[in-house]
């Protein structure tokens, strides 16, 4: 039987390394912000033309806006992203006309977001995320103990943050849909962690239980190990189906989520209960027993 609790210091180091690595990646590579958070124009066009020919077409427009052209893997769909600038309404008309007049290109999707609105969206997303984090912490604190709340929130932020690093590393576009993906990871992570918390509470509340804290933690994990592996496995199985079969503009999301499931499983097995232990939950238990 693996002694999970004894790994806690090693996993602190690993997590610290991952977090520092994420900070470095985000610092140097930045986030590939989509128009939801930066403002601008976004087109998805279906065309047989290649990248060069498409950029040729957009060169006609005199503008110093940055234009990004990306081919979606395994399809004839291109995503074209154009920065916002001055006099956007007439610019949109012009671009739409150019694409519509070109017989080789078909617009599948076009989207424009005013930069003032995108900064509002950032604020709004942060509000939404922060308030739900707060509510999670509050619920866990009420149902368990503050140590669990701190540890659960830490594990959750840890997982989401490293997933953001993953997105930055592989240049995956950060937009509102990706916020939904991060929420999915958060939901999965807290779910996984709470199942273990519940088991630890259950085991330690037994009055006949005279085992050491280490042993209790290990027992909690051991008894839940099969469930953790089964759930992660079925989730990843479903996600692989989505990656292979989902429409082109939705493949990135399950990939990020698979990574999230892996990191979430790691954090709940090796991190969460370790933190609870280091926050001296043992003392709470002893006080209760005496």
């Amino acid at each position, binding site marked *: 039987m693996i002694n999970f609790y004894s790994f806690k210091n090693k996993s602190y180091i690993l997590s610290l390394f991952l977090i520092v690595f994420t900070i470095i990646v985000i610092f140097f590579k930045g986030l590939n912000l989509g128009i939801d958070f930066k403002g601008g124009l976004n087109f998805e066009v279906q065309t047989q033309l290649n990248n060069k020919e498409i950029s040729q077409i957009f060169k006609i427009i005199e503008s110093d806006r940055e234009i990004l052209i990306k081919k979606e893997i395994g399809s004839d769909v291109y995503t074209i992203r154009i920065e916002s600038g001055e006099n956007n309404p007439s610019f949109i008309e012009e671009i739409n006309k150019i694409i519509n007049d070109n017989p080789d290109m078909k617009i599948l999707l076009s989207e424009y977001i005013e930069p003032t609105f995108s900064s509002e969206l950032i604020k709004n997303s942060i509000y939404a995320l922060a308030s*739900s984090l707060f509510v999670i912490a509050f619920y866990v604190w009420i149902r368990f103990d503050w140590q669990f709340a701190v540890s659960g929130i830490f594990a959750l932020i840890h997982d989401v943050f490293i997933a953001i690093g993953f997105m930055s590393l592989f240049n995956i576009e950060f937009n509102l849909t990706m916020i939904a993906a991060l929420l999915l990871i958060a939901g999965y992570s807290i779910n996984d962690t709470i199942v273990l918390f519940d088991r630890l509470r259950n085991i330690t509340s037994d009055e006949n239980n005279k085992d050491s804290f280490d042993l209790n933690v290990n027992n909690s994990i051991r008894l839940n190990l099969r469930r953790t592996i089964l759930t992660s496995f079925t989730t990843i199985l479903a996600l692989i189906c989505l990656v292979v079969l989902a*429409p082109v503009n939705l493949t990135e999301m399950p990939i990020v989520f698979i990574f999230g499931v892996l990191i979430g499983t790691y954090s709940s097995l090796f991190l969460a209960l370790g933190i609870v232990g280091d926050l001296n939950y043992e003392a709470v238990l002893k006080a209760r027993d005496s």
Partner: protein
Amino acid sequence: MLILKEWRLWLSLFLIFFCFYFIKPNFNDDSSTSKINFGLDIQGGYSYLLELNKDEYLDNLLIKTSQAFENDFKINSIIDQGSLFIPSNQNLEKINNILLSNMGLEIQDQSSEGTNYIISKRNFNQSLSDMTLNAVEIVRSRVDFLGNKELSIQKVGLNKILLEIPGNLDNNVKEVISKTAKLTFHLEKRSLVNSKVFKNDDTGEEIRVQEIPNLTGDYIQDASLQYNQNEPVVAFSFNKEGSNLFAQMTSENVGTRFAIVLDGALITAPVIREAITGGSGQISGGFSNESANNLAIILKSGSLPTEITIIQEKQIGPTLGKEGVKKGIYASIIALIAITLFMIIYYKISGLFTVITILSCLGLLFALMSLLNTTLTLPGVIGIVLTIGMCVDANVLIFERIRENFKMQSDNPKSDGFNAAYVTILDSNLTTLFAAVFLFAFGFGPIRGFSISLIIGIISSLIVTYIILRLFLNTTSEKYLGLNK
């Protein structure tokens, strides 16, 4: 028969009936309101997010307040950068706290020269929100007149309007919604005091007129596209009050020119040849059929309280929507089959129960979504996928707990295992549920779509595991469950 005594059986049957009853309207063509709507990202269409100008509205509100002070109390005030300054030399007797709070004002700062008032935040937000609701109706009527039947329009936040129209893009929509349509009539004025020059950029026509309009488009009752010598013109008629004002204005000023101004730009400046008492008129000025019709629609619907900006526009081709959905559904079904096959192989009979639980969870989810008339978007589909994940997880938790109890040879392995696992499930699901509720309350767009299906999904999952899965576990003999080794 023991099974007939099980209350869960009757509740399960009721649930099945409930699901069928509420899912059924989705397959009928009738216009039942209990249906799942599909978001634009699924069915294709276009949308605009409009923002009304807050600053302009604040200015309008201050002007109104200032006028009220002048008319009701003979107090002169000065509007300065979002605040109202009343000098101390005015008659301040009538100003008291009750009056101020009725007018929604609060003191910003005070000095010997006078007092600076601002409109209190609460009052301003309330008023802004009412104004937006009013604007929603104006925008709705404009788009309605263009003949768009299935539009969805709603107020978002304090001063935003989201307009969603399924189907192919109609460029007229953008034209009619983005115009404020403030129509004003001004008499010509030669003096430079309180006057203003309006210009028509197309024809170069210019006229100096009185700055404050003599009449506004607010009195217009009806407008339509008509032809005058084969040229499209916009014919309009005033309501009774407007007719009287117009008659008075024209009869007193025969021979004078007057300007017809739309959103600050001169349309035309005809000479008043005779008093117009019929209360109707015509605007001509190089219109095309389409632009004349659009203007008529705008005038008929009334003007917007402030200028409008399109802060987000989206156009999703129907092919992307349809193909995306087809592939998405296909992928989800394959994923579902993969999960169920795995569960059956791993848990045998119990795995089969999981399959039934998942299917009834989906059934209840769709029934509730139809009942609540929810809009399903692609992020919503992702929420459903997470729901299925949580439902499977609940099943695994229960089975593993029962298996553990068998190992420990507890007295009542099935029921104890179920109860112990259900506490865990409640804790973990409720945490997610509360988080999802807050996301729904504070989030926007995709985040809301994701959280609404997650909220409904978690509730469905909790219900079906407690009723249907438990029913199967209770009524199946231990040796068939396959959890006792």
